[in-house]
């Protein structure tokens, strides 16, 4: 369909904003052509809207009314960072911290180049030529959100784990919003985990006390996991306010790679979690799961595409959401099994717990199977709190409010159990309980 649509206010404003800031963005002249190319791609595509199938439930033309100016640097003390992290502060690891999408050396761990692990902010990697911004966004096609990201990107983590290196300490990519000015940020992480290497990468998105509640975040993570690599990759969004969070994960797996991904989302007004996984070799195992909490009129969309391009790979997905008030949860899970991808083993489950009759859950599994010797299944459930379980809890003396919280925890807990890092699982459990406390029926 190629109907000329009138550009929205935001669509008109975004290229103007770009012109204003383009020269100040990191990467300078080297990166400029790629940025301009991405911007012109965006200008041609425009914001995604409901007539595009993948965006059926999340119309950015409607929900992104204004284009907010790119964020500027803001100071943040170590104490303020800890406060912003809340329960996530308990998760041990080496940190690379970005405040308003800009690297903060003071708050970040000093990484030495051991040869096994290389961690650098994208802004510096661009300057030193370590990362090639000329290639950023080069083959990202019609994805308008990625195009915007490539045009505006200010920073991110560039991580490379050498072949055979086992990095035990989790790497925490911490994104903090600070300052009172309404803002937009674009960050991109580029991660390479070598052959038979092991790494744990946790992205966090949090907000500092007193920061603006009017913000747009656009985050992309490209991750390539080599043959036989074992990767744990988590994203936690714990935000508040009139905030949009547009995210893309581009995951490439090698032969025999074991990849465990998890996304936790709460507190944003509009979230779109795009996840794309491509298999590049046989016998790879993917577990991509998540939990989301929405209330008020919040909207959380997870759209997943898993492309089984080669035989004998496994994919597992479990996404669970709790929806209160008028909130809306969306799960779209496309599993493509290419003609050659025999012996594919895929299972997908999406479940929502409705705390209100006005909440909505749209679940759309899409299985495109072109091979004939495969095991693929999907399921989706929508339920209210189980009355029998309520009685069971109450018969043990647990008051109704606590019983309800326990049962919500039970529901979400099944997804959170996928997280093997105990401190992180505990942090997200406590975030869930705090959320429940604050959520009015």
């Amino acid at each position: 369909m190629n109907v000329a649509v009138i550009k929205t206010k935001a669509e008109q404003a975004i290229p103007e904003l770009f012109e204003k800031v383009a020269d100040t963005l990191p990467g300078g002249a080297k990166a400029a052509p790629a940025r301009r190319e991405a911007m012109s791609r965006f200008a041609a595509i425009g914001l995604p809207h409901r007539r595009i199938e993948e965006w059926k439930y999340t119309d950015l033309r409607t929900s992104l009314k204004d284009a907010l100016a790119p964020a500027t640097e803001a100071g943040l003390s170590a104490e303020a960072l800890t406060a912003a992290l809340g329960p996530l502060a308990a998760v041990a690891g080496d940190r690379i911290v970005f405040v308003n999408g800009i690297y903060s050396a003071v708050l970040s761990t000093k990484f030495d180049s051991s040869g096994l692990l290389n961690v650098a902010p994208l802004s510096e990697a661009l300057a030193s030529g370590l990362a090639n911004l000329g290639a950023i966004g080069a083959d990202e096609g019609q994805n308008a959100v990625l195009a915007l990201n490539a045009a505006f990107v200010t920073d991110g983590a560039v991580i490379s784990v050498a072949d055979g290196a086992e990095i035990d300490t989790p790497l925490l990519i911490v994104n903090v919003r600070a300052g009172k000015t309404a803002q937009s940020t674009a960050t991109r992480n580029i991660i390479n985990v070598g052959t038979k290497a092991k790494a744990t990468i946790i992205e966090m998105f949090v907000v500092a006390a007193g920061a603006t509640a009017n913000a747009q975040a656009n985050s992309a993570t490209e991750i390539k996991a080599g043959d036989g690599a074992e990767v744990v990759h988590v994203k936690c969004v714990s935000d508040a306010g009139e905030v949009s969070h547009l995210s893309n994960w581009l995951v490439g797996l090698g032969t025999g790679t074991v990849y465990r991904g998890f996304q936790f989302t709460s507190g944003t007004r509009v979230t779109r979690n795009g996840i794309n996984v491509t298999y590049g070799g046989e016998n790879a195992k993917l577990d991509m799961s998540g939990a989301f909490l929405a209330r008020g009129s919040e909207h959380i969309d997870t759209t997943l595409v898993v492309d089984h391009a080669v035989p004998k790979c496994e994919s597992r997905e479990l996404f669970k959401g709790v929806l209160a008030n008028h909130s809306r949860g969306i799960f779209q899970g496309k599993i493509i099994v290419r003609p050659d991808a025999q012996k594919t083993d895929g299972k997908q489950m999406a479940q929502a717990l409705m705390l209100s009759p006005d909440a909505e859950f749209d679940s759309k599994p899409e299985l495109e199977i072109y091979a004939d010797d495969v095991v693929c299944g999907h399921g989706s459930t929508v339920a209210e709190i189980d009355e029998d379980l309520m009685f069971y809890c109450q018969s043990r003396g647990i008051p109704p409010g606590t019983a309800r919280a326990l049962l919500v925890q039970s529901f979400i807990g099944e997804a959170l159990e996928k997280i093997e890092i105990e401190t992180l699982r505990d942090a997200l459990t406590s975030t869930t309980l705090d959320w429940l406390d604050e959520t009015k029926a």
Partner: protein
Amino acid sequence: MLEIKNLHVKIEDEERQILKGLSLTVPKGEVHAIMGPNGSGKSTLAYVLAGRPGYEVTEGDILWNGESLLEMEPDERAAKGVFLAFQYPMEIPGVAGLTFLRTAANAVRKKRGEAELTTPEFMKVVREKAAKLNIDTEMLKRPVNVGFSGGEKKRSEILQMAMLEPTLCVLDETDSGLDIDALRIVADGVNALRGPDRAMLVITHYQRLLNYIVPDKVHVLSGGQIRKSGDKSLALELEKSGYKEYEGEAA
């Protein structure tokens, strides 16, 4: 003392009466068994005592220590000392057994005006009580009843009972699904809770359990009423002759 007076119960939104004038008194310190054929209303009695939604008391009353239970929520009843060990204990995925036990124990302690247990105190008590029931504390780190065998589920019920220190214990078909070793462990756990301040109502279809939990009195429930009461020999009699003579409607 538990006094059930002329209790009439039906299922909400249905016409059929299940309990039709059941009267029963269980003094403190005694263990009474309720036996009866399938469909006689045994489980209904257990659920109504614990306050499960979906049942409607159309006539009569249930008094526990002189106070009517009928208007109380299940958690309020639990605070007053009522405990029901379920025939089919429920699974709560994602909630560790220890979390559940601690939440429950501290909720009733709070309502009873007692100090809540600190983590070390709680762990000490739970370890002791679990050991007696042959429950490994590792098992309690797993989600409540998920993946447990029939015997493990029943032991976990009795552990909950021991932790909540109820004064009125209702055991609904606690023997179902248990092999003889598991039955003995569960019965020992129940017997350990017998005491002068506790009343127990043991609901069972078979006499077998009563070899291990010896009752002070046995009642036959059929057609929604108590049809006969006697001492423990009544259970043996039933085991021989069956429930035939009690079938059909009460006169």
